[in-house]
């Protein structure tokens, strides 16, 4: 029964993962990917790793929400409601996909996973906690601090306020056609807002 569920969930994960590249909007793509991860998390729960499985669902929900917002924000396709092609660099991505599939498939076929079932009375969550905060502590703390530094850096880079004035000063949106006039609303009289008169030149 568990085998059947794992197989079904794996198929669902692959199908929703494939949908990521077939749907025409960043929001749909993000949440297709989330469904794929939820299926993987459910497999984790079935394989007696309840904490890792449920935490996958929890973290992917938050992450994909953040990703959807940022994808829409950085795409020149507001709200992701206009149809768009979700794939690019076809040859490279096909090559990378084939290599990844072959190597992961080889890893599955040639490795010998342990086949001793988890003892019914084993406290897997506590054991995982002892592992994370024991022998593996250095790895996880390093990863945690690296991620935190990345987040702080990303916030600083994307912040509008900066030491040398507003970050978007003098920036112009790209044109709708190649080399065309900048898209979006033009500032009236070359001024923009009253508190930064000095960047009149972006028309």
């Amino acid at each position: 029964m568990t085998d059947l569920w794992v197989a079904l969930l794996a198929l669902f994960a692959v199908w929703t993962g494939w949908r990521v590249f077939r749907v025409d909007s960043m929001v749909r793509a993000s949440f297709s990917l989330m469904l794929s991860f939820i299926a993987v998390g459910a497999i984790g729960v079935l394989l007696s790793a309840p904490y890792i499985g449920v935490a996958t669902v929890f973290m992917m929900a938050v992450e994909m929400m953040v990703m959807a917002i940022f994808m829409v924000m950085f795409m020149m396709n507001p709200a992701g409601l206009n149809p768009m092609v979700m794939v690019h660099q076809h040859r490279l991505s096909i090559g990378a996909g084939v290599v990844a599939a072959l190597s992961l498939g080889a890893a599955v076929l040639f490795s010998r996973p342990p086949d001793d079932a988890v003892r019914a009375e084993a406290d897997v969550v506590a054991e995982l906690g002892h592992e994370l905060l024991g022998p593996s502590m250095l790895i996880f703390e390093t990863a945690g601090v690296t991620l935190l530094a990345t987040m702080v850096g990303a916030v600083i880079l994307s912040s509008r306020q900066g030491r040398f004035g507003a970050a978007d000063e003098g920036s112009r949106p790209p044109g709708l056609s190649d080399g065309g006039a900048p898209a979006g609303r033009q500032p009236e009289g070359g001024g923009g807002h009253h508190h930064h008169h000095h960047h009149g030149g972006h028309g």
Partner: protein
Amino acid sequence: MTVLLLVLAVCATLLAGVVLAAVLDRALPELAGTMTRQRIETEAPDRMNRDLAPAFYLALAAEGLSVVPFAPGLALIDSPVGVVIWGACEALTIIVVFLHGWSPNAPFPLIGAYRYAAIGLPVMLPSMFVLIAAALPAESLSLVAIVDSQREIWNVLRQPLGLPLFLVVALALTLRGPMDYADAADIAGGTSAEDSGAGRTLWQVARLAMLVSVSAVAATVFLGGPLGPVLPGPVWLWLKTAVLMAVLIWLGNRVARTTPSRMLTILWVVLLPLSFADLIISGVLAL
């Protein structure tokens, strides 16, 4: 047999809770009124997400309630990571509300969706910290163990910051009052501005069901859940849940909503450090 009883208990609690919440909210006539009305379509909506969002919201409320113990040691989903399951329900609620606003392809729902995502994500952080703080004295992430750890003293007294912070989370999850950045009147109803007919009723019912669910979780984590003298466990849980529902509805009606940007500052600069303090105090006490 026990499982069947627990399934019944979850369903009955949700149903009775929704009716009670609708009465307290004075929403019954409206719920019944929109039920049979004709559905009005927006232009080029995402039909799948529009139709599924209310159903998923309701499902998340049911899922959240199913980890709550109705008697000491007796929950429908007696998972060693019950608190994390509830956390996943919270995170998925943000996505469901976002998709509910995104799918009609209309301005006001979309504004509500993005506003809610911006507020909802930082609300997750205090939520996780107060829940972890409650798990510390129990030395377990299981809600059954958290109930057991409150036999001497309830968490609301041991960790006084926990319940108030969790009530803020509850207001956000149920799109209510000061934390209602999704469906507020200032953007013409936000994510449900374009809802009509039975879909509108279902969304509002799901919202009330989430109120039941989040109140039951708060009662379990901070008020000892089914623990109490004389009366049987489920009755105590229902009483505590009903009191918290009334408190949340009262807060929702009484406290004003501020601008999203100011609320973001409050969340990051005030509530998040408070939840850190809660975690530190609970950690030191649990040592």
